[in-house]
């Protein structure tokens, strides 16, 4: 319930300022347009379109998800949050907000992508939805803890993608593999190992984040 109060505050604040939503929407539209223009009339394979989808998702996450903590630091409200709630509550609230943002953002990207790229055809939709679900959780969990780490740094903009890349790389590689399976129409049992890796990644990142956050949050 306490985390929900923070989530609700962040969501209402976002609806009023529209900082992350506007930045993300513009980024997604520009990136997909650039890909469309650069491909032109060329025929590209389903695998390549699947790969490009996760590239768009990765960079969109980089442009919007750091706001969770950076906006508090820039406005000077970090101290206020430190005074009113335990670190675990703060992390949970911010994670809930980023989860919602990631799911909304990635549903928008995938829908737009399916409409604009003919070669992006998913044969096994259930497998794609499973990987999409756990993949989004992984992106939100990792991005939230990285945002907390970089929020106190002076060069936040540079540090965020630099820190995110090695942490998100195993996740993105697994998601690329699972998207390939989904395009090929492979069964869930064929992709069992990759799904297990994805779930393990989420569990490990979530546990590590809760353990680390206390140290990151305190000066």
């Amino acid at each position: 319930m306490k985390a929900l109060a923070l989530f609700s505050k962040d969501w209402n604040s976002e609806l009023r300022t529209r900082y992350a939503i506007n930045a993300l929407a513009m980024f997604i539209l520009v990136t997909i347009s650039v890909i469309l223009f650069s491909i032109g009339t060329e025929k590209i394979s389903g695998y390549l379109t699947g790969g490009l989808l996760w590239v768009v998702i990765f960079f969109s996450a980089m442009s919007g998800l750091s706001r969770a903590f950076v906006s508090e630091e820039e406005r000077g409200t970090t101290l206020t949050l430190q005074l009113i709630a335990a670190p675990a509550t703060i992390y949970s609230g911010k994670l809930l907000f980023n989860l919602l943002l990631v799911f909304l953002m990635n549903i928008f990207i995938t829908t737009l992508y399916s409409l604009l790229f003919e070669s992006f055809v998913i044969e096994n939709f259930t497998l794609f939805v499973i990987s999409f679900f756990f993949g989004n959780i992984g992106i939100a969990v990792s991005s939230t803890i990285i945002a907390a780490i970089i929020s106190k740094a002076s060069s936040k903009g540079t540090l965020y993608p630099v820190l995110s890349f090695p942490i998100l790389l195993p996740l993105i590689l697994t998601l690329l593999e699972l998207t390939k399976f989904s395009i090929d129409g492979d069964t869930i049992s064929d992709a069992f190992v990759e799904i297990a890796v994805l779930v393990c990644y989420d569990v490990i990142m979530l546990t590590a984040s809760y353990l680390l956050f206390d140290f990151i949050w305190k000066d």
Partner: protein
Amino acid sequence: MTNYSLSLNNVQKVFGRRLIFKNINLTLTTGRVYGLSGRNGSGKSTLAKIIAGITSTTSGKIEHTLNGKEIKPEKLHDHLGFVSPYLVLYDEFTALENLEFFTKIRGNKFDKDNAEKLLEDFQLGDRGNDELRGYSSGMKQRMKFIFALMHSPQLLILDEPTSNLDEAGKSIVYSTIKNKLSDNLVIIASNESSDLALCDEIIEIEKYK
């Protein structure tokens, strides 16, 4: 009356190579107002933040107890009110929305009547539905007091409590400390002689260099 006590044992803080203070051994108890005094940069605000659990010590231990039972660090925010120039509330929300958020994140039910009464007490009763971005610096300072008092904490840490306040604002703050916080443990970090005049005991921070 609740019995809140705070003990600092060999508290030391070092930033890089700079020693801020060392060997602070103090016991502070309910019903008294303590002043932290010292020139600018002497470590008053740092000690206030350490007591509030926001900044860690380099060495030493701080123990908060309520009726003889130690308060766990993750529960400290329920017992603590803090006012500081560094404290910033949410400008995009109204005063009442801010107070509702602060209440709910503490896991309490929002009592609008109580919030409105506090706003009245600090002469902000007619501005409760205005966004804080439209407040003057003095009004924001009064809001910080409401933020600090609304959950009825036993420990109040007031870092430069009267900064940005006019005479009317100062008088509200002083009367609140004298009349409404007599059962609390209050720590005032300030150089203002009028702020320190409220204190039962003054702690000179520079003694601990």
